[in-house]
């Protein structure tokens, strides 16, 4: 059988969760726009917010994507704060101007921000009004990417969840893959599943609005990312059913994820093995190369993308690492429970953050590798700790068999680099 052989008696799922409150060193949900706007090619993301929001998008992208991007910020000004009616008029004007300039746009997302929520600017109402005004060419949706409601990857969750109610209804028996992945990885998943005879396979989000999947009682869906809780809830409300599994990172995770879907579609073991044997062997081989660097090393996760728990499971079980602390912005056991089941109890599991206290724990533990955001990485390196910036893990193809080695290598590289550099005198 291909199922994980042993379930440890006491797992992380039952471990107590450390919850602290204080300064959080994480992005807000607006950041997801950086990858979402590339995935949905006829969509535009219009943040209704402040200069800070615009500056965040520009800075978080690291380098500017300088072709006129398919996102922008409608910056609220003094006058907009005074009268709400005016703000709606202003928004209508900016949207009309934008759509006139960009006739290629078919979906427009009005993205709420901290300031728009504090002044209670009703973007849902604005989206309804603008949908009527610009129908049938453009559909206008809204979601919140504000820091007071969302962290980092929750922005993608909010975005996808906002699309679910307007997906067409279907009675078809279909598999829906949910989460924005690079095309190369998505294609690999579709190919593996198709070779097992599973189909039709649809994806959310689709690259173009015309290709959006249908939804109904016969649709089953599998999440590609562990941060899509609201989207899952919205899909459930439309009658679809989730296939629960560990997330497809590493050889083990990918196999477990595929196996869960295969079981749902009644694929026999022989077919499953025939399709997966070769890529599984490749994945094991590639992971083994990086695991030489990682085995026996300790790791400490600061909260960032909610990918921490599945990654920790991969690094512990397939790369031989030892986790000291696994921090995540939020822990949704309904989604990451199967991954937690595979992690033996031991590491501190923390949710949310008081960054100063967490830094104290990290410094005391002196892990071999610390996974953290860009604001913390260089300061910790300067203190002699080796770090892996978490955002690279979100922007790099790391899912499924063919990327399992890449995922391990991303963690191994900082350690290899530290060993490589000889910056002292020769003596």
């Amino acid at each position: 059988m291909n199922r994980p052989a042993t379930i440890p008696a006491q797992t992380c799922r039952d471990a107590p969760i450390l919850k602290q409150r204080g300064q959080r060193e994480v992005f807000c949900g607006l950041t997801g726009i950086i990858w979402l706007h590339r995935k949905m090619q006829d969509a535009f993301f219009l943040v209704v917010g402040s200069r800070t929001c615009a500056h965040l998008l520009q800075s978080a992208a690291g380098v500017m994507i300088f072709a006129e991007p398919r996102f922008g910020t409608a910056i609220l000004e003094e006058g907009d704060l005074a009268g709400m009616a005016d703000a709606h008029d202003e928004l209508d004007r900016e949207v009309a101007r934008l759509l006139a300039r960009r006739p290629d746009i078919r979906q427009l997302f009005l993205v709420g921000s901290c300031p728009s929520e504090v002044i209670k600017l009703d973007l849902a109402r604005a989206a309804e009004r603008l949908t009527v005004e610009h129908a049938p060419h453009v559909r206008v949706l809204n979601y919140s990417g504000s820091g007071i409601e969302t962290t980092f990857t929750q922005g993608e969750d909010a975005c996808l969840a906002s699309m679910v109610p307007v997906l067409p209804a279907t009675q078809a028996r279909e598999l829906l893959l949910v989460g924005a992945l690079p095309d190369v990885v998505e294609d690999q998943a579709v190919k593996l599943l198709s070779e097992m005879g599973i189909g039709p396979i649809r994806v959310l989000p689709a690259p173009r609005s015309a290709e959006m999947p249908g939804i109904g009682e016969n649709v089953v869906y599998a999440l590609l990312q562990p941060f899509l809780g609201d989207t899952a809830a919205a899909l459930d409300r439309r009658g679809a059913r989730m296939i629960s599994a560990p997330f497809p990172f590493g050889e083990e995770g990918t196999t477990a994820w595929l196996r869960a879907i295969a079981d749902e579609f009644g694929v026999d073991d022989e077919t499953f093995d025939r399709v997966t044997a070769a890529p599984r062997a490749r994945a094991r081989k590639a992971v083994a190369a990086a695991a030489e660097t990682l085995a026996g090393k300790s790791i400490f996760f600061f909260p960032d993308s909610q990918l921490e728990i599945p990654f920790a499971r991969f690094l512990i079980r397939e790369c031989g690492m030892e986790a000291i602390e696994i921090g995540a912005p939020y822990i949704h056991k309904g989604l990451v429970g199967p991954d937690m089941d595979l992690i033996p109890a031991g590491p501190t599991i923390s949710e949310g953050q008081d960054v100063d206290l967490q830094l104290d724990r990290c410094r005391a533990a002196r892990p071999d590798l610390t996974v953290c955001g860009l604001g913390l990485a260089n300061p910790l390196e300067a203190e002699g700790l080796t770090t892996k910036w978490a955002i690279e893990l979100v922007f790099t193809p790391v899912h499924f068999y063919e990327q399992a080695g890449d995922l391990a290598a991303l963690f191994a590289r900082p350690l290899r680099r530290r060993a490589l550099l000889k910056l002292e005198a020769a003596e």
Partner: protein
Amino acid sequence: MKLTVWTYEGPPHVGAMRVATGMKGLHYVLHAPQGDTYADLLFTMIERRDHRPPVTYTTFEGRDLGADTAGIFKTACMDAYERFRPQALIVGASCTAELIQDDPGGLAEAMDIPVPVIALELPSYQRKEGFGTDETFYQIVKALARPMARTPEISCNILGPVALGFRHRDDIEEVRSLLWEMGIAVNVVAPLGATPEQITTLGQAHFNVMLYPEHAETACRHLEKVCDQPYTKTVPLGVGATHDFVAEVAALAGVEPRKDLSRLRQPWWSKSVDSTYLTGKRVFLFGDATHVKAAARIARDEMGFEVVGMGCYNREFARDIRALAKDYGLTALITDDYLEVEKAIEEAAPEMILGTQMERHIGKRLGIPCAVISAPVHVQDFPARYSPQMGWEGANVIFDTWIHPLVMGLEEHLLHMFREDFEFHDEAGPSHHGGHAPKPVAEPGAPVAETARPAQDAQDDAAPGSTGGDVMVWLEDAEKELKKIPFFVRGKARRNTEKFAAEQGVTEISIDTLYEAKAHYAR
């Protein structure tokens, strides 16, 4: 409401962070929601700082809004004081906290924190980053500096350098050595590297050097009034301005304007015959006002360029730049909308852009070389090597930086001679830039163009220089002839020809029109 794609300046609290992060022993408690911590990475990544910015974010959430956000602020403020033990605190609100009106200044004042607490009022919905640096530094100076006895030796303060500044780190060294040559001691450099305690001793200097008006003008004015310290108005960027700066300092300090010119190579490099190809190069200037102002003088007087456009993004200095542009026979472009800047550059069709990282991208799209002269900064603007802009070495650095993007002297002629050569053709770009590989022989190499311009949108395809659908037409032969002109002057040739044709009332541009225009504009 204004739609913005890319911004030259962040919000004002980022300006306050630039002051706080530049200083030592100061801590900033910022009332802000989760997510505003993104600003930390500007300092730790772009500037490669090895410490976290000294900023505590209160991190309130949606569910706190109806409850006690003021309580969250007070806890964060007290925790920050206990943990970091700063010599002084600055407190303020980010854009969202400004809306909930908790009054961080008032709250902190009532807390009996045993060090000075300086409240910042930075209107996020009206002002920007530049205002934030200037106002924050002013508030700190106002709160801490007092008149006091002058130092026995002649001394000055150097005011204005901040974190994330364009070459501030190296400019300070260069200006220190200019002052040292005149025997003037430096009392305090601030904000960069200064502690609040040192700020209290600003008053003992005899005068102030205002290094960056964008960040220190209000503080300098305040010190002039309160501590009776005059301040310098010349910014030593370029050879001429550095001479003027030395003269101004000497007059303020009552010393001899002594200078050591042994390291200054720029004037000879500019006079040497190899540089004749720089004559009359048409350049477009855009950036912060101080750097643009200096660049205009360097470009015209020290490089022999022709300035064909100039502007700045910081409205605070709009009047200065408008007046300067008038001297150059131009109309200044004052805007923070990069699309407007791009349009102006496209219309002016310069041979080079002297701008910010934003203009570097514009230049990439339009195929115009660009050298960076001003913030906003990028990780590339923090080189490991010593690379000042100010003083004598700064003048040398600027010369090298500005000519690097250009096609060099003789190569320009060779391109004219062998314009049809399949390897040595103009679209290969300057040969000393590795990135420009010879184009495949096959015609318009679509995949090559794709990689050179990633993430291309439909909008990008408007041909540079096209006049957009009016009556003027280029005949096929003329269009072909135009393509034989090397890329770095093609924009100018197209523009001059169209201007000439319009003046002559010609609607069809032939080869003859092209060469008549060439003769007309010969210089």
